[in-house]
């Protein structure tokens, strides 16, 4: 967008008209995150309603799902949120090295989270017979349990993977010195998305594993 404004000789936007301090990219990301909230509402809402309608389909915490492993996995995601924020703080202080280091840590932690989740899927599907499709379902509880579990955690996992890819892209841009304390757009945007994904997991982990 900036190139357009320059091309047409447009003075910068008057801040008092715009949402003070919330520059366009950040506002766009916040608005996108609102639509993501509604997407997860649809999935989690269906899970809550189906569980309320047919409780016998669902097992109590720990019976089928491996809670300790996922608890550690959740801790990994929380750490990745912290490393993301440290990266952003480093950028604000102009510390390019720190930015790239913390971005790398976030990427590693994020990939670890997805790895553990895939491992958990394999465990559940192979040994427990806990699969999404109703006809093959064999674990404790009913086919609804597998369907809702895989759709919710699967889509969350997809969002984490997309987040990791975005972080890798931002890291490459950071290596080229694209970000400065004045132009911290890309990092803050990816940071907002990453924290949102962590926030969704906090709710998801509680509802799926602990209730």
């Amino acid at each position: 967008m900036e190139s357009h404004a320059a091309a047409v000789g447009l003075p910068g936007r008057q801040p008092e008209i715009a949402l003070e301090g919330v520059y366009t990219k950040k506002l766009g990301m916040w608005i996108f995150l609102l639509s993501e909230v509604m997407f997860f509402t649809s999935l989690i809402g269906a899970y809550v309603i189906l569980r309320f309608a047919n409780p016998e389909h669902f097992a109590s915490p720990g019976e089928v799902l491996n809670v300790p492993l996922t608890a550690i996995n959740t801790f990994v995601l929380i750490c990745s949120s912290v490393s993301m924020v440290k990266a952003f703080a480093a950028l604000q202080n102009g510390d390019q090295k720190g930015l790239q280091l913390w971005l790398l840590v976030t990427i590693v932690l994020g990939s670890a989270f997805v790895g553990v989740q895939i491992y958990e899927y394999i465990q559940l599907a192979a040994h427990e017979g806990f699969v999404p499709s109703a006809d093959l379902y064999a674990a404790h509880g009913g086919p609804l349990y597998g369907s809702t579990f895989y759709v919710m955690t699967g889509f969350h996992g997809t969002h984490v993977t997309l987040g990791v890819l975005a972080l890798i892209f931002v890291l490459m841009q950071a290596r080229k010195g694209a970000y400065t304390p004045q132009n911290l757009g890309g990092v803050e945007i990816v940071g907002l998305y990453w924290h949102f994904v962590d926030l969704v997991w906090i709710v998801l982990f509680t509802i799926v594993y602990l209730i």
Partner: protein
Amino acid sequence: MSVSAPTTDFDLLPFAGEHHEELPFIRKYIFSTDHKVIARQFLFLSLFFLVVGGLLAAMIRWQLGFPGQPMPGGDVLPDTMAPGGIILPEFYNALVTMHATFMIFFAIMPLLVGVFGNLLIPLQVGAPDMAFPRLNMASFWLAVPAGVLMLASFAVEGGASGAGWTAYAPLSASGEWTGVYLGQQLWLASLFILGFSSIAGSVNYVTTVINMRAPGLTWLRLPLATWALFITAWLILLAMPILAGALIMLLFDQTIGTAFFRPEVGGEPLLWQHLFWYFGHPEVYILIVPAMGIASEVVSNGSRKPVFGYHSMVLAICGIAFLGWIVWGHHMFMSGMNPMLGTTFMVTTMLIAVPSAIKVFNWLGTMWKGNIHLHTPFLHGAGFVSLFIIGGLSGVFMAATPVDIQIHDTYFIVAHIHYVLFGGSLLAIFAGITFWYPKFFGRIMNEFWGKVHFVLTFILYNVVFFPMHSLGVQGMMRRLYDPYQYEIFADMLPLNRFISIALFALVVVQVIFALNFILSLRSEKVGPNPWKANSLEWAVPSPPPHGNFQHMPVVYRGPYEYSLPGAEEDYILQTEPDEEAEPAERSVEPATR
């Protein structure tokens, strides 16, 4: 003020004509990020799907008017659809489903939100382009594959989806009940992709309106078209993801065999209806609110008079947006939903009639004591108001739950749908295309043929759809391949035949609009403000150059200051400095006249 020749770095020679067989070609596929080019691309795409939807409607009416008789030109269709031109029941269900799907998702919604959103928002808020131009381009180039997938679902084995555009489970949840497997999955995948396109577009619209308004353009100086598109973008942002989630669950039911909506393995069919209509009702307001915005623009312009009660019009749009989230149950009164919920939804649905009433009275107030120029956009706008009144009032019958018992899922509902969607949105779209044609192509559509098209369409439209209220009151159900199997409906064949013939005439009359649209691409060029309007898009040349504004426009007044006492002309551009305003505000040079 010399206007340098617009340095358009794109070479667009549209000779798109939607003749029936020929697909609209753009000679060069332009991966452009200019919101005006994207608006034109959306225009051609959705006009093409409007034609497709219209053809499907003609086939439906043929089967209802001449059941079981070979359709003229029907032998073109393969035997899986219409052996010897005689439409099969499964193809009829596919026709009903795909007519609604194409019209709602690929014609009316892109025409209102994709076309006018893209064209008007940056121009009316005084921005050079959308907040995220590349995302805006992605929004169009996601809609194209969605449309292709939907069209392809006709060609696959088993035919297109036949579960209704509402795809109620369990009929839609497994091909076992309809014999349509891949067709239903393509239907689901196509709408899922379209969801991305709509959300990408809406993020752009909301960010542009909030963050990129020209100085002086406060919220209450925004034209009502931009207000309507802004609120609609919010509805899309919050409603489409719900549909995306529901579609994904239904797609997994269809493919992997999950159990969300399949009752035999524990799923809940009512859950699909709740999720679908929780998206569905904001969706129908997505289809009408932009039309209301366009109607306000053309009615005010035609009457040469400010919109009556601008503030209450804005409040009414916001009222519709809020109430739109708590009424979805009125689609499900008979569906086995808890009757007590029915009563709550009945009350909220009754309340949502109030903002629509406010808008109608304000449109009438705008015309009152005006100096009405009956130009084509105004005619379509007045047509919109008169038909929207009927559509709104017929909604009250369905909101009253006991009356809904008799008329639910009958042709009364079909009449209501078409009075708000065809009489409402489509007439507003005709008004919008004619009104902003200069901003699309720099030329103007023929006024005489515009009026001829309006008069014929208005008359034939009412001849086709008003009798449907009577069919519905007699109890004739929707989506019946051959309603005359029921003895009590056998005597409705003559009326249905009459409606069908009237519809064929209505479809033919649309050729006038198509020709007017195509031939006017070559008509004489027009200046920046042929309709003598006030908002910012009329302060730039037609068609606006890349980047729209030579200098940052500064706004001093509201968009509807027509016939201002003391002004020499009966219109004043928003960029006209206010005489009484203190000099500091008039320092910046106004935009090109």
